[in-house]
């Protein structure tokens, strides 16, 4: 089933075939989860929101006309749901529940740039850096955080982000520029 195109699986899912939808979930759930996780900085919230997004997508699948790809469409559902959730969460206290860093990170050359002996901040540890990064991201507005997440973490193009966020590429670029400026200010101690 893995070689089948999304459109075929979507058509079967629209007829109520859960096996076809299961395949679609397998294809995209990790990327959707990762985006929601970077937006919320909380594993449990990301888990719940990803589940709800796919369940909502299945229920709304009959209205899916195929104007965009299934991937973009389900992303849009997840993003809207996450932004609504964050607006409610901002009114109450929240704690970060961060996932562990993959051990591969220690081999990353860029990491060495930030925590190697050459830098003035050689005393920082990986966990501390992770926390600071998440704290800085959480200080951004939802739309700026989403733009940074989709571009700098998920590696999406400006066009894809524009489709997901329902805006043009110029807006995506300006949001990205502004968000990076903000992050530079919040994380200046690691950048100098």
């Amino acid at each position, binding site marked *: 089933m893995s070689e089948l195109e999304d459109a075929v699986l979507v058509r079967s899912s629209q007829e109520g075939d859960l096996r076809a939808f*299961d395949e679609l979930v397998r294809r995209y759930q990790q990327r959707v*989860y990762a985006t929601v996780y970077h937006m919320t900085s909380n594993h449990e919230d990301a888990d719940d929101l990803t589940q709800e997004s796919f369940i909502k997508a*299945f229920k709304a699948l009959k209205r899916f006309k195929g104007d965009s790809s299934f991937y973009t469409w389900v992303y849009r559902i997840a993003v809207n749901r996450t932004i609504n959730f964050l607006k409610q969460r901002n009114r109450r206290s929240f704690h970060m529940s961060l996932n562990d*860093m*993959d051990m591969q990170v220690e081999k990353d050359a860029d990491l060495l*740039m930030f925590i190697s002996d050459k830098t003035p901040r050689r005393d920082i540890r990986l966990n501390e850096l992770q926390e600071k*990064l998440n704290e800085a991201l959480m200080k951004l507005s939802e739309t700026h955080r989403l733009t940074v997440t989709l571009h700098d973490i998920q590696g999406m193009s400006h066009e894809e982000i524009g489709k997901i966020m329902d805006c043009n590429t110029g807006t995506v670029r300006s949001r990205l520029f502004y968000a990076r400026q903000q992050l530079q200010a919040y994380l200046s101690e690691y950048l100098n």
Partner: protein
Amino acid sequence: MNDSQQPASSRIEKLIALKRYECPPPGHAELLTSKIISRLEAEQMRAREPWYRRWMHALDLNPILTTAYGGVVMALMWLGWHYGEHFEAEAPAKVFGNAGLQMGSLGLMGSMSSDEDASSLGITLEQAFQSVQTSSSVQPRVHIPGSPVPWLRESMAARTLSHADFQPY
């Protein structure tokens, strides 16, 4: 180019990109998929159930709906109690014919503006009162303690009386 000579925008991009290494616990992907599919299967099963089971399930799942339902039931009970008490308080006036007297009086008052007018009709208010009290519409009020609802007590009393009227002597 040395790391420290890189532009700040490039360095911040690299720093943010480190978040890619944050991974969920092992097996999370499989678990998440099975959670989504099992929830959808459960919903499909539920859609085939009769309406009252779906309704009960919705009450189980949604605390807001359950609270709202409880609130509606409580409000209806309070309204029933409140109006029941209200009718009970008004009941003697209706049963003993005061209402009839008032209506009769209103009829009289509608046609006369003073005592002189009343005497010109040839009746007094006392006569009108007596005529209403002795009319056949007057019913004694009997309390049936078994019934918790006042208006039901009265209707049961009326039913008991009418039943007794037909008993042979």
